[in-house]
């Protein structure tokens, strides 16, 4: 088991400015002992990926409240694959209908936490995703 501290980039992609969820989760993850870098608002996908590289994060956590999670998630996964960032995981939270979760996972997202997901669940899930104990459905 890897006991190294998890480094996570909490990111707000796109134009949506509702950041309460991102900030709350960032504070919860920090209280759980993770090293959290928060990007702030209005990030382009390219910026998020660059910051993730610069900060050597284990995982990116996107927060999307506007409903645009599908196009954004598909693009970031594609761009990360193009950059060869296979070891950096991606999770997403926000205003995400239950029926979209399967599609997001198929697109390569490792964890989906619609608004209201308990902190413990997010924390444990991120820990197992990063430690590689998590296996996605084939």
């Amino acid at each position, binding site marked *: 088991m890897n006991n190294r501290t998890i480094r996570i980039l909490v990111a*707000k992609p*796109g*134009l*949506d*400015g*509702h*950041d*309460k969820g991102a*900030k*709350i989760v*960032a*504070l*919860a993850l*920090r209280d759980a002992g993770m090293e*959290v870098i*928060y990007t*702030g*608002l*209005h990030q*382009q996908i390219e910026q998020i990926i660059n910051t993730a590289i610069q900060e050597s994060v284990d995982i990116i956590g996107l927060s999307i409240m*506007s*409903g*645009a999670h*599908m*196009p*954004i998630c598909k693009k970031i996964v594609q761009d990360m694959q193009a950059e060869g960032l296979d070891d950096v995981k991606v999770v997403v939270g926000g*205003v995400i*209908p*239950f*029926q979209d979760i399967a599609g997001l996972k198929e697109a390569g997202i490792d964890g989906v936490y*619609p*608004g*209201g997901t*308990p*902190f413990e669940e997010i924390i444990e899930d991120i820990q197992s995703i990063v430690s590689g104990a998590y296996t996605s459905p084939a």
Partner: protein
Amino acid sequence: MGVAKYIKDEKDAVKEVIYQSGMRVKPVYTPEDLEEVGFSYEEDLGEPGEYPFTRSLHPQGYRSRAWTTRQYTGFGTPEETNKRFKYMISHGQTGLNVAFDLPTQMGYDSDSPSALGEVGRVGMAVDSLRDFEIAFKDIPLDRIGSGLTINAVASIMLAMYQALAEKRSYPKERISATPQNDILKEMIGRGAWIFPVEDAVRLVGDSIEYSMAELPRCNPVSICGYHIRESGATPAQEIACAFGIARAYIADVSDRGIDPDAFVGRFSFNFNVFGNLWEQIAKFRAARKLWAKMLKEDYGVTDKKKLFLRGLFGGGGSGLTKAQPENNIMRSAFYALGAALSGAQTTALCSFDEAYTIPTPRAALLSLRTLEILMEEVGLRDTVDPLAGSYFIETLTRQMEDKILEEMKEIQDVGGMVSAVSKGYIQRKVARQAYEFEKGLQEGEYIKVGFNKYADEGEDQPDVDLHQYNEAWADEQVARLRSLRRERDINAVKTALKALEQAAQQKQNVMPHLVECCRAYATVGEMAGVFREVFGEWQEPQLF
């Protein structure tokens, strides 16, 4: 959020009640409580319609006029939005409040790469005056007022509304637009900001100064405690922050040599109603009194009408839940009751499906009917400020005044709102509070029915008909934009944009130039692009 903390014993008796703003509430209030706070009808309340307006701005309250209903409305193309406007008006809505999509709010055209996936999603796409012409088709601009929920580019939208009125032959003195235009609250808790703080506040000042002279029936700002509360502020902080923001905008305009007396009467507010009913009512009564006092004592405003705290008190989204969404219909009804008992001039509700996405016509209509039933059936028009004199409410109102003043002092002590927001002080504070509340909710310290008490078993998703985003809207909007660019007089556009750029560079009032740009069918992206060039973009302070 917003619910009180209830500490109960093993028999479910309520031992302690602690409001979000900090007060502890007793089981019983008596005349002694009023004596203890030194309550005086003349000092604390005054007659309805008389200073300090605690009871009401108007002597007869809702007896003279029911509240204005303004459901937040807009999505897709201007045609779609026009249809929904007409639908709501046909069902009795008395004012408009326009929702714009994110590219519009952030100053991007619908075909900008930054707009991808967002055109028409959270509101209506507006690229130019042509879109306003379509959106407001058949709407009588001299009889219906339009709230424009727009902030970073509010100056552009206000100018566009004036240009629209001209096209439709309405004198600009007759139109009533209320651009939200509160950039400081964006920086705290809504996020649709673009430019650095100083320039952004100056744009607000420009619209106020211009509106004073040219658009006498417009309300150039709607200062929003609403979003600050949504972000984690307590009710008392909501008012304190809003008043702090008002002070910042007043300062910007008065620094131009203009007496606050000349413009402050057209300030309006947008406040939040959710969570504990009594706390909200006390908050609004205290707020009316403190606003009037502040204007009179700190700014020397004497004209009665200019001391009014005119506000939209609207049902807050964070009170609602995704789980068991129909509960939100009842929640919103109680919030609306709170708004009515507080004497709101204008009101609106989040619709029951809004935890999922923007409302369906049915959900929006249910919100409107809630507001109509209160006014028409159950007695909220009967008499002014019906709770006045209540031992509990009057004690609580006085306590709320003290809390608000305490919070206002804290803001002054950190240098005022512009400084506090620039440094991230308010943002960090409300984020921490929001986190603590969320933790409390997850640990069962606060109860939300259907969420952590009386919740459904299993992962069954509620059967809710949802508004569907239609990607064809984006294609349609982009096509219209492209044909506009071909059809308009590009030289007129360039000339107007050049003049706008010069005004922005020289820190002159940009409004007349924006009107000129809009008349020439310059696009939102072009006009905001000029500002981006000249002002640059804000760099947010760090969260931690």
